[in-house]
């Protein structure tokens, strides 16, 4: 595997697992592309700075009135933000935004970003103590302010830009269209993790923010858990080494991309986020990367060819914009199609492809099952969640299986026989929904080293 990153940057490796053998007349090629970035983290940097890459972080804390009910939420948010600030690497630019029906710069203010050091961290924490709850919720306005700050002139072009957003309630003081417009304008300009604290927030809003801005989404039902979660989020953000990496797909004439999904660590459909590059190539955003590994499922429809023919169905590469308008190719892999009359070869489904097809279905049936449950369709909910239990058990997705078991009584996991629980804690249902897209990798020797922590 060739590596083209600059010596100091992370090294990207691309591996392709595919169903490359097609029967006569076969047109669909499925490939799982595993992208692994190593040598990032704190071991090197694209800049000369020994401390790590340039980075800018905005922390958006919900300060709406509901944060005082119970008051542990506001206290938890203050402490969590303080812990996140402690986790900032020296030299990282940062800002704290208080979010209500408007967005307010809490620290340092005046449209600026602070540069993290012992002094600014202390100043910021002093300011946090005076943070109080009061007002509504308009998340789009928080994001627009974060975007302005993170993309101000003082932040270098190649910096890793990241937001951390905490909310406890629904986005009631702006329309869904306003939030969507804000997400559209922020997409690709910074990445953002989103958290819901308590159980009064809307799962689809929080997951929608994380999805659009290529970050993680999660629930922190108990405010006491916020500090650990914020610290972990900030540490992950500090581990990001390189921003704005795109997955570039070249396909031959006559071929069509059916879909492109990130499938690990979470399912994220990228199909509609294509930016064309030349006549037969397009870029799909993947956000920023530290030391990590992600899997993508690429499905390409190629023109049929005769037995014995071989073609390149797609060339997959990881690219970054070098800042001068030129793109740099970090690594690449080839997705081939070979037509064979060997039925065993053409009917065999690659284990990786099969696994992630199942994981994507798992995420989908959980969502469908919970939606059916909310709408009162108990038979539909039972069927979908039963299928989810079956898929989770079959694929070894133990975390999801455990979350499902809090929503349904599992009679027989192998056949997917379940009964809906009469009473389900809100937190359990929201946790399942928020984490429904989390996947596990194929368990084999080769993947042990890649297994998510």
């Amino acid at each position, binding site marked *: *595997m060739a590596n083209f990153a600059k010596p100091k940057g992370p090294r990207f490796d691309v591996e*392709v697992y595919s169903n490359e053998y097609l029967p006569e007349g076969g047109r669909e090629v499925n490939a799982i592309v595993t992208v692994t970035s190593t040598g990032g983290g704190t071991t090197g940097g694209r800049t000369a700075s020994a401390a790590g890459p340039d980075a800018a972080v905005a922390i958006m804390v919900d300060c709406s009135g509901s944060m005082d009910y119970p008051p542990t939420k506001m206290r938890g948010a203050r402490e969590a933000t303080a812990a996140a600030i402690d986790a900032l690497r020296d030299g990282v630019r940062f800002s704290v935004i208080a979010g209500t029906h408007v967005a307010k710069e809490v620290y340092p203010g005046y449209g600026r970003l602070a540069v993290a050091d012992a002094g600014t961290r202390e100043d910021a924490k002093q300011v946090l103590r005076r943070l109080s709850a009061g007002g509504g919720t308009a998340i789009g306005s928080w994001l627009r302010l974060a975007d302005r700050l993170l993309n101000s002139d003082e932040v270098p072009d190649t910096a890793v830009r990241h937001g951390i957003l905490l909310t406890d309630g629904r986005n009631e003081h702006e329309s869904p269209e306003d939030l969507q417009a804000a997400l559209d304008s922020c997409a690709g300009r910074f990445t953002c993790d989103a958290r819901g604290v308590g159980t009064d927030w809307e799962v689809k809003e929080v997951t929608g923010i994380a999805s659009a801005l290529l970050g993680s989404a999660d629930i922190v039902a108990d405010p006491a858990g916020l500090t650990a979660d914020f610290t972990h989020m900030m540490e992950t953000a500090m581990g990001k080494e390189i921003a704005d990496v795109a997955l*570039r797909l070249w396909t*031959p004439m006559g071929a069509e991309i059916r879909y492109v999904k990130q499938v690990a660590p979470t399912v994220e459909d990228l199909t509609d986020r294509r930016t064309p*590059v030349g006549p037969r190539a397009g870029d799909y955003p993947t956000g920023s990367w530290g030391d990590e590994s992600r899997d993508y499922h690429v499905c390409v429809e*190629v023109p049929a060819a005769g037995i*014995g023919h071989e073609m390149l*169905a797609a060339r997959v590469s990881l690219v970054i914009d070098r800042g001068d308008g030129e793109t740099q190719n970090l690594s690449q892999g080839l997705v*081939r199609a070979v037509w*064979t009359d060997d039925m065993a070869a053409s009917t065999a489904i690659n284990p990786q492809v099969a696994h992630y097809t199942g994981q994507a279905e798992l995420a989908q049936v959980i969502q469908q099952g919970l939606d059916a449950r909310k709408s009162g369709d108990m038979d539909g909910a039972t069927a979908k969640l039963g299928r989810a239990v079956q898929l989770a058990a079959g694929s070894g997705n133990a975390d999801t299986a455990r979350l499902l078991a809090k929503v349904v009584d599992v009679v027989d996991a192998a056949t997917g026989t379940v009964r809906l629980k009469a009473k389900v804690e809100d937190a359990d249902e929201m946790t399942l929904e928020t984490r429904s897209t989390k996947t596990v990798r194929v368990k084999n020797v080769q993947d042990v080293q890649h297994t998510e922590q």
Partner: protein
Amino acid sequence: MSQMHQLTDGVAGATCPSCAEPLESGDLFCGACGYDLSAVRAQQDHPTIAIGRGSTPPAADPTDPAALAAPAAPGDAVEWPEAREVDSSDVPAPVHLPSDLAGTDSGGSELPAAERPFSSDASAAPMPQTPVGESDGPAGPGADGTDELGDFDEPSTPSRPTADPRTATPTPTPPAGIKLCVACRAGRVDRDGYCERCGHAQPRERDHMEQELDAVAAVSDRGLRHHRNEDAFAVSATALPDGSPAVVAVVCDGVSSATRPDEASIAAAQAANESLLAALPREVHPQQAMHDAIIAASEAVNSLADQPDPVPDHAHHQNAPACTIVASVVAGGLLVVGWVGDSRAYWVPADRSVPAARLTEDDSWAAQMVAAGLMNEAEAYADERAHAITGWLGADAYELEPHTASFKPDRPGVVVVCTDGLWNYAEGVDEMASAVPADACSRPLHSAQVLVGHALDGGGHDNVTVAVLPFPVAPQGAGSA
């Protein structure tokens, strides 16, 4: 290894093997008794006619001088040319029947034919390396990179219908220095060997190879149904210590169900060839040299298993690379063959009124079944395991058992050394002989081309490799490699 059962349309006029009801072309089952005809067709497409057709092989009796001197060998069709037991040139030439080619075992000692290791329990037979229907070729997703992405410039040439890369004629005047795709004839070829426009793989060097020396020639072709050529050959010529010429041909067929079969076949062919070239001038008996060459080839293939796969293939199990081998040496009035697997050598006399003969016996499931008398030939070859090989070169081979044999033909002819890509289309010895051009002795390259063409005309389902060695060595042919 062609292990696929092809459906062919050539059953018109055939009858059901079960109830003799006439069949129609395209029938999948017999209309009268419901017999599954797919196996029948498979057999027609992969006709492996083994020793002793229609009967159990004659028991080789080493004490019977008649069997040695006047061998009426495989089946009733072949009469081996008479040969003296010991010739006047001081070279003791053991003469074998094709049916009792015990050869030497891996320890170098002779094995009686009847005692070739074989289990009478079919299920306990050595596991075939290429079970029927196993996936074909590892061919990992080539993820090797280039320095940068090939550019995506669209050539201005208007699009044309896609053509078969191998039948498309080259663009009359391609711009200097720019390789155009053979399929769409408009796109440039990227560094990975694919068209930047239509993505089609470009012909590779091994897709079609020919080599001609004065006294031997070989041709190898990808065939029409496989995406790459996993066969390999080596031909060469040297001289014995007495200055007389010695000619070598080695043909290997990569086992598709193993990893990197193409590398295995080339490594084996080269190692065997080099071993023979080193041994023959040093007074090593050609049959011993052949035995040693197969051992050398085996070691070369084994060592591939230790090397990391440059292109990890996750679609297949990482089996050790493996291949078959068949080689022939014509030297000092002797014709020596050696083999492991189901690649074959045939003797075709120049005088076609004299019967031809097959010199090798497949290491295949069907051949073993027939040889052991457990099945008749029809039953054995109707079985889906028929073409699975029971011997091969590779780190996972159970026990390397090189078969070698020496013959002393009493008249001119050619040795045809080939993979199953050819013999699948020339069922019996007679068919093989009739496919060999009459002037084979004087035009070995042409003959090899004609034989490859015969396989391609028949469907070209597998890679095809053929070497043709005239016997005796053409006088002008010595040492001209």
